[in-house]
């Protein structure tokens, strides 16, 4: 999934745009899809994708040859942060009784599988969620290790632990899954 030997990134969009723009055009759709997958909201995904590229543009220390991995990891991370932020917001609303009774639409959405999975992803450790999302995006172990700065040898173990953590959290929230 990671594009190797990518074009180098420019420091200024107006002054030396080709490098950055090429990288941008190459990765932007994938980044939006990756975030949309996590947050389930196209508009929010585009918003966060712009944020990802802004960070990329402003940070000169990102290695040029690892732009793809860095962008993908940051995108997933921002997506997970957004999920966690929403979960926190919902929790506070409940605590402060700001939210009225749930609408039928909300109840139905809560029962949907996607919503359940997102809730579980926002509850487990961010690193576990990142591992699961990258793996489900068909990243190879060496690519996951590169994107998350992990030791290649330990990726398998970490993924197994992340799967267990996911299952455990799901069981805690929704009961034993029907396998």
């Amino acid at each position, binding site marked *: 999934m990671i594009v190797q030997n990518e074009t180098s990134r420019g420091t200024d969009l107006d002054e030396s745009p080709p490098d950055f723009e090429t990288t941008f055009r190459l990765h*932007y759709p994938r980044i939006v899809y990756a975030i949309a997958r996590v947050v389930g909201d196209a508009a929010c995904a585009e918003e966060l994708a712009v944020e990802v590229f802004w960070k990329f543009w402003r940070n000169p220390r990102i290695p040029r040859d690892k732009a793809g991995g860095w962008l993908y990891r940051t995108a997933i991370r921002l997506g997970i942060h957004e999920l966690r932020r929403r979960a926190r917001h919902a929790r506070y609303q409940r605590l402060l009784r700001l939210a009225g009774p749930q609408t039928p639409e909300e109840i139905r959405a809560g029962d949907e599988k996607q919503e359940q999975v997102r809730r579980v992803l926002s509850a487990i450790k961010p690193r576990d969620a990142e591992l*699961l999302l990258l793996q*489900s995006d068909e990243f190879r172990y060496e690519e996951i290790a590169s994107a998350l700065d992990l030791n290649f040898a330990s990726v398998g173990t970490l993924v197994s632990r992340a799967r267990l953590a996911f299952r455990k959290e799901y069981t805690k929230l929704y009961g034993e899954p029907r396998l």
Partner: protein
Amino acid sequence: MANHDFENNNLLNDRWLNGCLESLTPGRSVVPDAGKALTRLRERNRARRIAMRRWTWTSAGLAAAGIAVLLVPNARACAEQPGACMQKVWKTVSTHNGVHERVVSQSPAALPIASHLSARLLPAQASPSTFRPHALYKEIGSPTAPITLEAYTDYQCPWCAVFFRNIVPQIMEQYVRTGKVKFVHRDFPLPLHPYARLAARYANAAGEIGHYELVANQIFATQDIWSKTGGIDAEVTKVLAPGDMQRVRQLVKNDDSLDETVIRDVAMGTNTDHLNSTPTVVIVSGDAREAISNAATLPLSVWQSYLDTKLAGLAAH
């Protein structure tokens, strides 16, 4: 058999989890618009640049205000400080354990008047010829006088004006004109006085055409007027003939050597006499140099008694 069940269970679990994560795949509603996003990034960058520019200008403004705040109390301190315009001089001193520390010089105003008469005796650090000012018009009195008074002043220093108004005329009358003392005027413009150097240029330019004393006295006498606006020219015009004034203006405008005499005096005051305030008078007799700071605070009677004692001692010797 149990092992087989465990593997089967794991496989089912993996399949279930993969199904969970695959359910997240976005529908066809997600249509990324790269062009729009790129425009947003450019706008964001432009906004950041504007913010940066504002920040830079604000910082520069604040820095300028800070410097002004630091300088204004200094300027005020000139008028408020009894006896001298201070120039803060950072000196490096060695402490007992060999560590070098930077200390700011103390105000000489804190010293009692009596201590001025036992002022620090500076060893002669250069041959007498080095002590001659660059411009001879700054020397008044007999070249063979046993004592030389070297007065370091700043034309914008209020205490220098007091010294020139109250003390100098009497010393001129009683000691300089009678050949007992030679008087040397040295320029020591302090950085906190913006017009002091210009005033020194006018006085030195007048010196070049033979009117040094007249113009120097006029500049000190009208200090209150020109020190607010820098209008030295208008005050000097009052005491010079139009032709002379024209020549002074030409010299002030074009003659670079006028600054050289000031630079030499400042170097002399800094390196040899270690000045940190004006007015300071250095009394030279033979090879000895005694620096008396806060010269304006000493009453005339103290000056007279001091000079008389000094002259008597030299005569007896």
